[in-house]
């Protein structure tokens, strides 16, 4: 009797799965934002939970601990991005107002000539032929116009972003405050047979994920500090006129959370600032706007991070294969753009920890 039933049960389960997939496919566009918020909230909660637990131990009130920590972090973020954002905006505005398109075009032409002069003869001739008809003034105009258009599009998306940010903050407060009760309610749904092993699994996952994420944050902090020091050195030794170095350093640290692409992305603000600040400085043009200096500095910072800092703070326990990292970055980028890329690797890290633990459980299934 049982044998006759099995294929039917399998078919029933298959139909169930297909139906679930269809439902998810149709409702995904409506729930993708909520899923993204929940994923981010979970990551924030995992990172902040040890600090909230510690603070609760000191001040004896969990809600106060959650609010104090979040408002402290928010204050830092708002102050940081507020002050540097305003500075950056002012600099950009000043640049666009004062920029003498003719002079910039001349500078670019001069730089292009200086570069080609250093190249071997045959390449020089080819380049000269290709570039003789380029109208640099028109090109600079087009670039400035395209930047302005992108800023307008960005402002339109800012409204949605602020709303999502607000929701993320509210959910994070609730989850941080109710985390232990929430976990207990979830655990209560597990059957007696898997109860102990699930508790062990959850505790292991929490420990590993928290260690992995705090390790990543420590590594990012070290990259930020090293980049700030490096930029300061470039300013002091070569008089590079780089401003907003703390802002650039922090962006480099954050970008470092995205492996492979991050380190290069981290250089972009520094290079942009170097060009913005030195565009009308002939001495800087000689040094190619100090771009080589900046690139070398970032490569040194990366080497220090990869060989000294990361092995100590992140550890090799959650090492992910570079190909998996690339695939995760492509999927993350496709799903949610730069934010998706930022969260892709931590998410894969979390999934790896979960799968390692589940494999352990399956190996020890005789105890269930």
């Amino acid at each position: 009797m049982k044998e006759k039933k099995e294929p039917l049960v399998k078919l029933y389960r298959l139909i169930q799965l297909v139906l679930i997939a269809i439902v998810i496919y149709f409702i995904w566009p409506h729930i993708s934002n909520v899923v993204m918020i929940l994923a981010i909230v979970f990551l924030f909660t995992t990172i902040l939970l040890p600090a909230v637990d510690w603070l609760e131990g000191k001040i004896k009130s969990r809600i106060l601990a959650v609010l104090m920590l979040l408002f402290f972090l928010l204050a830092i973020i708002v102050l940081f991005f507020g002050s540097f954002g305003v500075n950056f905006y002012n600099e950009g505005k000043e640049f666009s107002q004062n920029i003498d398109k003719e002079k910039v075009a001349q500078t670019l032409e001069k730089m292009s000539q200086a570069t080609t002069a250093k190249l071997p003869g045959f390449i020089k001739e080819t380049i000269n032929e290709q570039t003789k008809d380029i109208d640099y003034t028109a090109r600079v105009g087009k670039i400035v116009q395209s930047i302005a258009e992108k800023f307008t599009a960005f402002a339109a998306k800012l409204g949605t972003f602020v709303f999502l940010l607000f929701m993320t903050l509210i959910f994070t407060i609730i989850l941080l405050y109710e985390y232990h009760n929430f976990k207990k309610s979830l655990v209560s749904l597990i059957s007696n047979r898997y109860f102990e092993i699930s508790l062990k699994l959850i505790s292991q996952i929490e420990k590993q994920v928290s260690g992995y994420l705090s390790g990543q944050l420590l590594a990012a902090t070290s990259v930020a500090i090293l980049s700030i020091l490096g930029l300061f050195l470039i300013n002091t030794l070569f008089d590079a006129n780089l401003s907003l170095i703390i802002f650039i350093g922090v962006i480099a640290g954050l970008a470092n959370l995205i492996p492979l692409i991050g380190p290069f992305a981290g250089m972009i603000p520094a290079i942009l600032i170097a060009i913005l600040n030195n565009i009308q400085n002939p001495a800087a043009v000689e040094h190619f706007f100090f771009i080589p200096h900046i690139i070398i500095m970032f490569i040194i910072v990366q080497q220090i991070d990869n060989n000294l800092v990361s092995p100590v703070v992140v550890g090799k326990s959650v090492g992910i294969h570079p190909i998996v990292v690339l695939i995760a970055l492509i999927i993350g980028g496709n799903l949610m753009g730069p934010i998706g890329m930022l969260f892709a690797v931590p998410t894969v890290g979390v999934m790896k920890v979960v799968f390692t633990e589940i494999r352990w459980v399956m190996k020890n299934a005789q105890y269930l």
Partner: protein
Amino acid sequence: MKSPIWENIFKGWNKEKESDTVLTLKQVPIFADLTEKEFTQIEKIIHKRNYKPKEFIFKESAPGVGMYIIMKGSVDIVINSSTEDETILATMKEGNFFGELTLLDEKPRSAAAVSRENSVILGFFRPDLLDLLKRKPSFGIKILLNLASIIGDRLRDTNEKLGNFRRGKK
């Protein structure tokens, strides 16, 4: 003027009725000397589970995660379970507790625990104790001290028995 509405609203205000869970916890020496507030907090992190007759609470050699307190029913502590050599080492009754050593380490269980009848069992687990130590250190230390005192008593008891045994042999 007395209003029945207000009297009813504030009836029992500030007077929390002790739950069955707290009453059971009060019988366990590990939670001795805790304040009422601390008992309420322990109640929040403790897991209440229902077991059917012959259902395993944990199996022999499984990695230990925490201790259990019997609220209702009874539990057999068994070695070589589900084999011909199955031996019942002890039968635990309401208010008894077992598995407390796994609060200190995660060594495998030396015996299995099987529910004899429909039982309600409270579980207190190592990850929750570690959380408690982080969040409320003075409270967590109270529990650890009680646990150390129980283990100390048992060690003294074992030493005494070993002494008696040796003396008997001579």
